[in-house]
Every structure is written in structure tokens, then in C-alpha cells.
């Protein structure tokens, strides 16, 4: 299912047949992943889909049950310091000492890495310059999240893991975080992102994998995934319901306010039929819109299907 761009060298992350069992529960049920250098890859999925388990195996926080995992050519399960020097991890479940200041915290972590970024650059990158002397315990939730990111990037990692980097952010802070992630990408970093937000994946990711019930159920670029659903939605508004709708077109259930919608795999002939009918009857199709399904529509559909399959098992 992965697309290979042919010219790129070995993938930064390569996973084959990864399984993770917790007792009887199979949290990850055989997934394959390939993430190329300088790619922003988003792992989407509902809670409990196995995203965090997968990412934590890649980070070396958890052991795998079976399968092959390679991160920058290393086995992350081996707790290798050389690998940790080249990756940055921003998790939701990690923290920093509450009684140190922002600049002390970044400074402390920068000592762990062989080629850290200048602390001042990191402060500026995450926008915590004014809070540099503030104790961590006095930071707001969003500021603390930015400090998490600062600690994750201070080692100048080639590969950055971002676990729900904007959860709890207000809209402007989210925009800021997105801008920061784009900047990191433009610096040549590879980023593996997990998120609940479809618009975030759509805005940032080069490729997306959707994970449901421990499996990857879809993978591709955001637009490929949206097309995967393959259907186009045509919507319009019409008053005067006494008119019979054109023959041969199957409409979705009628909406309020005289809105009509239909979904089709063949938008061009469908539109032709619709507009011909409208012109012949002298009807104006108000608010006529032809749209592709969003990534969110695909996600909801896949998540529902996955959940149903899960219940059957």
C-alpha cells in the first residue's frame, strides 16, 4: 500500500508485520509502515486504535511482540543512545521538573545531545522568549506544551515524534504550532505526527495512515484518501417541491430548507442530467455546490466500519 518515490534512499522508519500483545489483548495487529526522509507522516485514528502503542514502540518506550522495526537503521527496542541522539520525542505523558525555569529546562536537556541547537534559537522557535525565566509550574497549558516541543527539538533531531501536538490549544496557538511544524519540515526534518484532528493532518501531512482496531485501514496522501471514498457530493437548494425531480438520479434523504444532495461516482453525466432538467423547467439551482468528501468523511466512515468489525470479532 505504500507508495515508493523511487529516488529516495532507505526509509527513516520501516515497520513490517508489527504486533503488540498486552496479555490477551492484541493492541497492534500486524502493521506495515514506511516513512521517507523529510516527510510529515500523520497517524490518525480514534482512541484505543493502537496509535500510541505503535509510536511508543518506534520511540523505544515499549517492546514489540513480533515484527520488524527499524528507525534510522536502528532497532529502537535496543535502547541505543546513538539512536536517541538523533530523534526527538514529544509525548503527552511526559513532563519536566516543575521547579526549574523554561531556560534552565531547555539548557539541561541540550546537554544530553552531541549537537544541540542554541537555546536562544529554540526559545524563539517555540515562542517562549518572554517566559524564559518563568518556573515551569507557572506556565499555562499551551506554554507547557510548547516547552515540551522545545525539549523535543533542542537536540536538533533528524526525526521528530509529535504525539497530538496541538491538543488543548486555542485556534491561534494551533496556527502557530502548525507554522512551527512546517518550519521544521523545511529544515529537512522527518516528522511522525499522531492527531485526532483531520484538518491538522490535511494541513500538515504529506502522507496519512488511518489506524483502527490495531490495523492500518487506509494510507496515502490526504487527497488520495479523500478520493478513496470515490464519491462526489452535489448539493443545491430548490424551492417549490411540487416539481418532480429528474428521473434516474438517486437523491439522499431530503434535507430541511429545500436543500437537496446526492452522491455519485460519475459527477459529469450526473450534473449534465441535473442541469438539463433545471434549464428545461426554468429552475434556478440555488447554492449549487460540487464537493469532494473531506478526509474527515473518510475517517468517520473507516472508523465506523472498523468499530463494527471489532464488535463482530
Amino acid at each position: 500500500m505504500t507508495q515508493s518515490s523511487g529516488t529516495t534512499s532507505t526509509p527513516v522508519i520501516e515497520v513490517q508485520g508489527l504486533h503488540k500483545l498486552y496479555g490477551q489483548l492484541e493492541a497492534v495487529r500486524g502493521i506495515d509502515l514506511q516513512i521517507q526522509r523529510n516527510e510529515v507522516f500523520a497517524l490518525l485514528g480514534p482512541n484505543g486504535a493502537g496509535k500510541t502503542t505503535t509510536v511508543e514502540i518506534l520511540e523505544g518506550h515499549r517492546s514489540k511482540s513480533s515484527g520488524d522495526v527499524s528507525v534510522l537503521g536502528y532497532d529502537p527496542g535496543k535502547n541505543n543512545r546513538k539512536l536517541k541522539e538523533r530523534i526527538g520525542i514529544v509525548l503527552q505523558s511526559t513532563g519536566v521538573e516543575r521547579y526549574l525555569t523554561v531556560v534552565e529546562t531547555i539548557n539541561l536537556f541540550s546537554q544530553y545531545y552531541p549537537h544541540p541547537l542554541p537555546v536562544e534559537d529554540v526559545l524563539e522557535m517555540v515562542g517562549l522568549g518572554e517566559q524564559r525565566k518563568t518556573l515551569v509550574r507557572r506556565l499555562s497549558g499551551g506554554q507547557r506544551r510548547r516547552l515540551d516541543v522545545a525539549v523535543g527539538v533542542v537536540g536538533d533531531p533528524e526525526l521528530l515524534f509529535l504525539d497530538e501536538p496541538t491538543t488543548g490549544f486555542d485556534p491561534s496557538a494551533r496556527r502557530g504550532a502548525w507554522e512551527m511544524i512546517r518550519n521544521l519540515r523545511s529544515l529537512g526534518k522527518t516528522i511522525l505526527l499522531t492527531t485526532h484532528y483531520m484538518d491538522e493532518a490535511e494541513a500538515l501531512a504529506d502522507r496519512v495512515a488511518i489506524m483502527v482496531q490495531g490495523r492500518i485501514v487506509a494510507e496515502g496522501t490526504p487527497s488520495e484518501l479523500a478520493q478513496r471514498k470515490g464519491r462526489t457530493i452535489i448539493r443545491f437548494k430548490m424551492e417549490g417541491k411540487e416539481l418532480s425531480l429528474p428521473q434516474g438520479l438517486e437523491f439522499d434523504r431530503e434535507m430541511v430548507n429545500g436543500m437537496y444532495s446526492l452522491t455519485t461516482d460519475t459527477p459529469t453525466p450526473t450534473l449534465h442530467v441535473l442541469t438539463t432538467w433545471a434549464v428545461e423547467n426554468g429552475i434556478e439551482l440555488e447554492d449549487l455546490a460540487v464537493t469532494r468528501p473531506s478526509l474527515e468523511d473518510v475517517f468517520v466512515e473507516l472508523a465506523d466500519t472498523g468499530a463494527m468489525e471489532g464488535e463482530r470479532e
Partner: protein
Amino acid sequence: MTSLSLVLKQLRYQNTAFWRNPVAAFFTFVFPLMFLVMFNLLFGSRDLEIPGGTVNTSTFYVPAIGALSVITACYTNLAIGMSFSRDEGILKRIRGAPIPAWSFMVGRIAHAVFLALLLMAIVTASGAIFYNVDVPTGTLPAFIVTLALGGATFCALGLAVMKAIPNAEASPAIVNASILPLMFISDIFIPMNDAPGWLTAFANIFPVRHFSVAMQTSFNPFEGGLGFETVHLLVMAAWMAAGMLIAIRTFSWEPRR
């Protein structure tokens, strides 16, 4: 950076954070010194029978509160501090960074030992200045060995008890419940001269009394020999080994939430 300089860096930042945290600084540092002052005020001038003769009770309280200080800095402080670090995800964060696990651990343990030594120095100096309790001279090697073994034993036990701590909020209760009752029956708060034999026998199962008694001997002015309490030190060493074994086998870097 070399691992040693990482340890020193860790130690320095740990120390900075420690003194900024009023709860940690008060209970670990001010508490033992308060006990020293109070017990000496209340009982210090009374006569007390010790091996070799009669002294005033301050000669008991200076080494006893010294032992208490080591236990508080190493066992109580380390267990509670590390439990909070575990639940706040600090340990997990360290686990994902390219710092060897042992440099971080050594940094934390070294800070606890540093606090213990600082408290011991203050307690011993106060004894000499205010309570007429001599600093160990002939028994100095025994004093140093007892102090070092006590620090190691209670650090090991502090890390081992983390296994029994379900979350950070529960840590002060569990840690204090495990150590405070022992302090009452282990020649720390009260001399056990008149205690029933079975109670002393019970206290002797645990390392607290062995540590306190070994410390007393190194401060005993009638002690003619080197003052090594071999049996007491061996029992402490056994507890240290058990603590280390449990800590190494059960230590978790993952938050327990």
C-alpha cells in the same frame, strides 16, 4: 558530554529545583533540625544510661537525629520525589533522551546523599556547639562507614518502596506509614532502654534501629575501641542488598496513571 559531567549537571539542577520547592525543602531539611531542637529542649539535660556510663540525653539525640536526617533525605525524600517524577512523566522523558539511565539515577541518589551529609554536618556541629556532644574522633572511621552504609541502605529502600506506591498523591502517606512507626521503636525519638524485650526484638527486624544504634556507638564517649557495630552493620547491608535487588527488578519509568 561525559557521563560524569552529566551526573554533576543533573545534581546541580536537582539541587536548584529542590530548594525552590517549599514542601520538599521543609519536610526534608527543616523537620529533622526541628526535632533536634525540640527533643534536646524537652529531654536533653536528663541523665541516660549508655554502654560504659551515664551521659545527658543530648548524647543520645545528636546521633539519633543524625540517623533520622539520613533516613529522611535518602528514604522519604527520594521515594516521594521519584514517585512525583515518575507520575509527572519526567522519568519517561529522561528515558527517551540520550542520557544513560544510570547517570540520571546516580544524579538523583547523589543529591539525596548530599542532603544527608549536609544535615549530618549541621546536626553534628550543633551537638558540639550547643549540646556539649563531642564530634567522633577515635571512632571517626566507624562513623563514616555507618553513615555511608546508612545512606546507601535507605536510598536503596527508597527506590524499592516505589513499587508499592500506586500514584504520586499516595506517596507521602505510604512512605511515612512505613517509616514513622519504626522511628518510635528504634531509638530515634525515644531511647529504648525501658522498652519491653519483644518490642526491641521486633524493631531489630528492620534496619532503622541498627542504623541508629551503630550511630550512637560512634558518638559514645566511653567507647574505647574503633566503635564498629559489626552485627548492626551487617543487618543494614542485608537490607541494602534486598532494597537494591527489588529496586532494580521493579523500577518503572512509566507514569502510573
